[in-house]
């Protein structure tokens, strides 16, 4: 049973690691979306130089 517990926690450390990585990716996508929106709004407001 001791080795089962060892394996179980070993496995869940792996899953938690992956979940944290996914959460970081989602956060980065949202942050970049916001940054792109702001930049594109700024570009559409400012006229192109001649």
């Amino acid at each position, binding site marked *: 049973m001791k080795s089962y517990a060892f394996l179980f926690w070993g496995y869940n450390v792996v899953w938690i690691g992956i*979940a944290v990585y996914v959460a970081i*990716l989602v956060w*980065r*996508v949202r942050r970049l979306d916001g940054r*792109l929106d702001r930049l594109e709004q700024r570009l559409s407001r*400012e006229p192109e130089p001649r």
Partner: protein
Amino acid sequence: MAKRSSHAATALLLAIVGVLMLGANFMVFVYAPDEKVMGAVQRIFYFHVPAAIVAFTSTFVMLGASIGYLWTRSRIWDCLARAATELALLFCLLVLITGPIWAKPAWGVWWTWEARLTTTLLLGLLLAACVMVRSYADSAEQGARLASVLGIVAALDVPIIYKAVDWWRGQHPVVFGPGKKDPLAPEMRATFLFCLLVFLLLYTLLLVLRTRIACHEERARDAAETVAARGEAG
């Protein structure tokens, strides 16, 4: 609206993969029987081998994207190569963590400089170098070029890892291979295939997410450069 539905689709896919992850844990710990010789510790195989397969798959995706970038200089290839490199490194790290968890009870040591272990560590170091070279390069283009060349070199290590046990008579167990009889019981095979499916789904989702981030970063960099150029011109 399109952005919101894209985020909702991502969240839905994440939830599905999360449920499948729980199902994989159930199959590994409840459904699959104990292996006769090694007992419970053999169950590490169900995560270790799929993680290795995904790491190698991602290395080959990186290889294709790196060649594509060097051939065409198209940024989309570079975005894909960046995503595949980071994911290959993530899954290679999982292999390098789960391997010693199995090795300690099976061999009595956490690590030994056995051929397959050493070549897998080498792959991890090469992938880490690919990620780092982008950060330290003078320009994004130079980083992409150097990382692509290094990525091709890293991919050459994968067939060496596969054949290492044969070439150098390593002690790493070989479960599958040409001419080998399938040693798994039906429940073990079903558990292994389910875990492999979950890992491949997870990998696909992460690859799409990470590639999207890389493309958005490129767009943001272009937009910031345009804003700066207009500011200077004005």
